[in-house]
């Protein structure tokens, strides 16, 4: 602890100092229960991803094409404006995403927090993990599985509004003719994800599975 007056003029703030102070702030905020939303932006084979989590679980995975700023504004407005970048809370989900993109993970274990969704949409996205890794289901099949076979369009909307794509695999829901169809992360991302899963599951090019 220094009590002597500073001899030199005060230094101008530099980026490194501010980054260290910022990291310390995030840690202290988490300790004091003030980190309502922590987020990080990471690279992935389907573009940069924003991943945000509250104390109860992952709140949001947003693709670049959806607009990270828009996602943060929505979290601030509907969850809490106490939003900060960084922190250790994201480590488990980011590790699982890395493993997923490397083809070494088929299901996600981290808790998700679906407070941004209610009613039928919530029911639909919660049913998505029933479509196995490497497989696909049509919107109609998912509608039937949730007990509302006529709600095909509503299933499409629920998938489009899925706050945690990848973790809850809306990319496995495709058109009845087998073509991939639309995706919140862009149609190309959906194709990439389905190909990645087929390859990792050994379903490509007739490579048999035991």
């Amino acid at each position, binding site marked *: 602890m*220094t*009590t002597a007056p500073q001899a030199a*003029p*005060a230094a101008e703030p530099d980026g490194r100092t501010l980054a260290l102070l*910022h990291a310390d702030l995030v840690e202290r905020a988490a300790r*004091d229960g*003030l980190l309502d939303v922590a987020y990080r932006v990471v690279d992935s084979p389907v573009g940069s991803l924003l991943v945000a989590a509250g104390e109860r679980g992952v709140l949001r995975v947003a693709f670049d094409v959806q607009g990270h700023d828009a996602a*943060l504004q929505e*979290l601030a407005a509907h969850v*809490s404006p106490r939003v900060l970048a960084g922190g250790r809370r994201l480590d488990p989900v980011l590790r699982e995403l890395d493993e997923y993109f490397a083809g070494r993970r088929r299901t996600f274990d981290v808790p998700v927090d679906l407070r941004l969704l209610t009613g039928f949409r919530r029911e639909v996205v919660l049913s998505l993990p029933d479509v196995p890794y490497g497989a696909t289901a049509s919107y109609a099949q998912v509608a039937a599985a949730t007990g509302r076979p006529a709600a095909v369009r509503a299933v499409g909307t629920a998938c489009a509004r899925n706050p945690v794509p990848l973790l809850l695999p809306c990319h496995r829901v495709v058109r009845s003719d087998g073509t991939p169809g639309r995706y919140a992360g862009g149609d190309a991302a959906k194709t990439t994800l389905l190909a990645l899963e087929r390859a990792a599951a050994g379903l490509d090019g007739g490579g048999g599975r035991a």
Partner: protein
Amino acid sequence: MTGPFEDVVRAHGPTVLRVCRAMLAGRDADDAWSETFLSALRAWPELSADANVEAWLVTIARRRCLDELRRRARHAVPVEDPALTTGAALVARADEPGARDLDLWRAVGALPAKQRRVVVLHHLGGLPYAEVAAMVGGTDAAARRAGADGVATLRRTYGAAGTDEEDAR
């Protein structure tokens, strides 16, 4: 406020650090920065949407730094002085620096240590010279001289605007 607090830290982090460094040294300035943003984070959802965020943050930072300087002064004085523990009310009679010109903080930060502390405590913190002297050491008269010299330097380095208070005391 309904916007993400992260934007606030990015936009105003450097300014708040300038304020803290103008008032405190080294590690203590860093601590004041962290405490400023931590208490701002706590209050953020309730802050009114039309508030001047920078002025609000600068006010919090200034109070934090003054609290720390007062705490120090108390520890330095063997017999507790009631005038110090009760403390003078902090009247924000200086312009909100954040709202006016951030170069002021740069210029204040560049002053020699004693002048800087006196200028900050008296002109920005609103403490009378007697209390300033008790905190920085030396006599009232020495504090007055350091304050006058500091303001003279600021007139030169920062400009002639708005620093006419030392004439009145």
